[in-house]
């Protein structure tokens, strides 16, 4: 029953999409309000339908309905309930259905929130968002059905082997068939991939999906603007918050993915420049560029074509990332799954990209996307945003080339797969990231229109001096490598400028209104969430930068075999003693080999760690033990090796300085994004206001953005 209800509701959601598209188009074209409203209702209806569909799959997973192939391939009778639930996105079919569900949530919310204000855009928003949802549901209905069940021929005289050989897959019971015995099904259940049994992995995919799927809404609004001809800033006003929400989830997904890699993959790092990781980073980079450059259009009515192009590229990259990681076109350890959705995904990606770029080019050539102001000079807020965009696009291009461009074109033109290694990224991206940080340190101090270099220089005195003092302190601590000093200085400057801007906002209120500084701080954050939330995001990015520099440039790595009782000198401060080794069996039946070690810092015992190896169907998995302090992580791995006995083992130890700042910075970034996104801020950006704000050639640097 579960499979039937799940499949039928999924099919109904698909039919609702197919109905909504022509209904919305017809209603918009011939001004038939009834049809548009009907299309909207169909769009909203996809959510309850998909909730039921996903609910059925979750129930099937929880109760262990192993006749459903998906349940059998992602859980087994030993799987704990928590992982039963999360198996919903543990493999291809379930994750596609879950993807559709998250998209229907976004679509429903957009319909409810934006319906009144953006009436002219909404029919086309329905068309684009429903087309995307219809495509993903078609994959689930026709190719990757999570409700497919296995059936045996109903013939009592047939031997079980013959039945197994003649088994068929179908959602509904075929004629003359019976369900296989439950015990046989349960014995053949496979359980969730052991690498995925980690808290970070449990919430990392949904966050990433929410980020990916979330960009559908701003994209649909942009396309609606192009299709309807309402090319004012309406679509930007309607989508700014949606873009931030998508960006927030994508950031969370990336950070959690890094944390998972750090905890589970056992190589002492959090970012491996794998094509699949990069695929998720690319839309983040272009989305970030969009979030900045869209402000130029709001304030100055410039870069209209460019902004459209950025949001189209963001969505196109989301689709490309999904296609590339699920089609097997790129060899990556992450994406090793045989899949027949490669071609349909390619066609959808190609189709939606061509149609949207085509629509953009059409409006552009009709002269409907003309800029309202001219560019006044590089030393201005808009100039800085343009530079910011150039850097983000350069980063995107470099990472795209390394992950997809080089491997794909080398296979095609040279008949040899050239895969670019971490070295390529470590050579190409640091200068671009440094330029990004430098810009973060300058741009917030410039004004719209133009700033004189003199004024800019004056406002930089405080942050620059603070940076200078901090750099002196860092040098006194013994950091002298020029690369490290340069890297730290740009990142620290960016952080100080963010704090300085907040400080200036507070002190202006304290001076003019005589407010208590704490009240002033609260007020500026309530009055201008977007701007000050943005500075908190900058601060978070700066803190992440400090963590990345520390853990990349100053990581210590040691590998050594030890006998029980031996002490290993790791660096000047740290020692490690190997105390004991034991075997244990986990809740889900895997055998674990656990080492007990003691971390000694400057002669004092500071922690007991238990790095271990999990043996899961002959696939060994090394689980690190880590001792975190503010300044570094002591990270130890038990290495499977031939001389492995209960009295002797090989350990690999990393000391990762400042790595915790990556996670703390991530939290700050999330906090800042939530502040920026939080509703309630009065919206005043109308065309008239924009013109007014643009009138004085030099506005003070504290002008609202």
């Amino acid at each position, binding site marked *: 029953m579960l499979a039937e209800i799940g499949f039928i509701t999924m099919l109904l959601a698909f039919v609702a999409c197919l109905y909504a598209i022509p209904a919305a188009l017809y209603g918009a074209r011939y001004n038939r309000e009834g049809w548009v409203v009907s299309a909207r209702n169909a769009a909203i209806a996809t959510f309850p339908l998909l909730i039921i569909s996903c609910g059925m799959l979750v129930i099937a997973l929880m109760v262990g309905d192993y006749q459903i192939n998906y349940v059998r391939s992602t859980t087994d009778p030993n799987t704990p309930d928590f992982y039963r639930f999360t198996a919903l996105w543990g493999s291809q079919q379930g994750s596609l259905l879950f993807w559709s569900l998250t998209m229907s949530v976004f679509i429903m919310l957009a319909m409810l929130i934006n319906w009144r204000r953006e009436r002219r855009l909404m029919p086309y928003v329905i068309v684009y968002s429903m087309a995307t949802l219809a495509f993903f549901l078609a994959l689930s209905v026709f190719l990757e059905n999570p409700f497919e069940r296995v059936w045996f021929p109903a013939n009592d005289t047939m031997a079980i082997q013959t039945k197994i050989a003649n088994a068929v897959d179908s959602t509904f019971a075929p004629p003359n068939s019976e369900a296989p015995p439950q015990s046989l099904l349960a014995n053949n259940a496979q359980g969730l991939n052991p690498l995925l049994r980690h808290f970070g992995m449990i919430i990392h995919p949904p966050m990433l999906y929410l980020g990916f799927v979330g960009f559908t809404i701003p994209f649909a609004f942009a396309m609606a603007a192009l299709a309807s001809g309402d090319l004012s800033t309406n679509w930007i006003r309607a989508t700014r918050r949606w873009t931030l929400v998508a960006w927030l989830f994508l950031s969370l997904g990336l950070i959690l993915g890094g944390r998972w890699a750090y905890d589970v993959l056992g190589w002492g790092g959090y970012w491996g420049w794998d094509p699949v990781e990069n695929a998720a980073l690319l839309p983040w980079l272009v989305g970030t560029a969009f979030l900045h450059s869209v402000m130029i259009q709001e304030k100055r009515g410039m870069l209209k074509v460019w902004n459209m192009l950025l949001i189209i590229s963001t969505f196109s990259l989301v689709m*490309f990332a999904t296609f590339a990681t699920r089609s097997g*076109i790129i060899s990556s350890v992450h994406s090793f799954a*045989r899949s027949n959705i*490669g071609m349909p995904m*390619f066609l959808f990606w190609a189709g939606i990209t*061509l149609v949207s770029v085509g629509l953009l080019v059409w409006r552009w050539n009709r002269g409907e996307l*003309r800029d309202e102001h001219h560019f006044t000079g590089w030393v201005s807020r808009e100039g800085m945003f343009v530079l910011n965009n150039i850097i983000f696009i350069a980063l995107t291009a470099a990472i795209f080339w390394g992950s997809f461009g080089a491997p794909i*074109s080398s296979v095609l033109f040279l*008949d040899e*797969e050239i895969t670019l290694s971490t070295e390529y990224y470590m050579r190409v991206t640091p200068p671009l990231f440094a330029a990004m940080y430098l810009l973060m340190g300058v741009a917030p101090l410039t004004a719209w229109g133009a700033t004189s270099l003199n004024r800019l220089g004056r406002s930089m005195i405080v942050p620059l001096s603070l940076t200078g003092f901090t750099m002196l302190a860092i040098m006194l601590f013994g950091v002298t490598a020029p690369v490290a000093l340069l890297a730290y200085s740009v990142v620290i400057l960016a952080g100080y400028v963010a704090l300085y801007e907040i400080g200036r906002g507070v002190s202006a209120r304290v001076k003019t209104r005589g407010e208590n500084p704490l009240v002033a701080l609260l007020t500026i954050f309530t009055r201008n969430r977007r701007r000050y939330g943005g500075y908190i995001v900058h601060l978070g990015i700066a803190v992440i930068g400090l963590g990345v520099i520390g853990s990349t440039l100053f990581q210590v790595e040691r590998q050594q075999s030890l006998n029980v009782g031996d002490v290993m000198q790791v660096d000047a401060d740290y020692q490690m003693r190997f105390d004991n080794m034991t075997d244990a069996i986990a809740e889900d039946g895997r055998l674990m080999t656990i080492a007990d070690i003691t971390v000694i810092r400057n002669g004092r015992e500071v922690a007991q760690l238990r790095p271990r190896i999990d043996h899961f169907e002959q696939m060994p998995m090394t689980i690190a033990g880590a001792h975190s302090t503010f300044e570094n992580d002591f990270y130890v791995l038990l290495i499977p090796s031939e001389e492995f006995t209960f009295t002797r083992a090989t350990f690999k130890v990393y000391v990762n300085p400042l790595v915790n700042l990556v996670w703390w910075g991530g939290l700050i970034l999330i906090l800042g994004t939530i502040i920026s996104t939080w509703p309630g801020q009065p919206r005043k950006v109308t065309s008239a206001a924009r013109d007014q704000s643009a009138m004085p050639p030099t506005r003070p640097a504290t002008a609202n953005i």
Partner: protein
Amino acid sequence: MRHPIARRSSKFGSLFLMFSVIFAIVVVGAALLRQEQTVRAGHPVPDFTVNTFDGETISLDDLRGQIVVLNFWASWCAPCRDEAPELQYIHETYSQHGVIMLGVTYAESSAQNSINFIEEFGLTYPNGPDTGTRISRRYGITGVPETFIIDRDGNLAPGGYFPGPVNALDIIDVLDVLLASDDA
């Protein structure tokens, strides 16, 4: 009325934009098509040369006239471990009938890993690395293990493609048909 220069720049820009999009789509599409082209039964399989871990150079073309069981594997792949003794059994039993067992390793981080695997399972048939994944790409493999049985004329044998773990009995079924047709 728009300034003629502005109009020209939008024309040039849009042409460039459309061209780039179409170019990207064509390149990705061609790569996808190429990847989806798998080897078909009854049709010639791609030729290749592999330098084995024993220092031999083996070219598939030179093996024409013999039946070849080509197996793609990796030391990090769990099903390959189940399969290795079965393949060694095929080698021991069928080499006297002119069947050549040949292993090609896929995406290994070091040759030493493959050599350790070969020693662990006592594999005596030739094995070599697929440097730059040239061979596996030509055969369109999407994972390891995958196995191909190639007849004496260099065509893929009917039923001779196994996109996943294989056991000796599956291989023997195909080999027996090929050997029987020799006798006939």
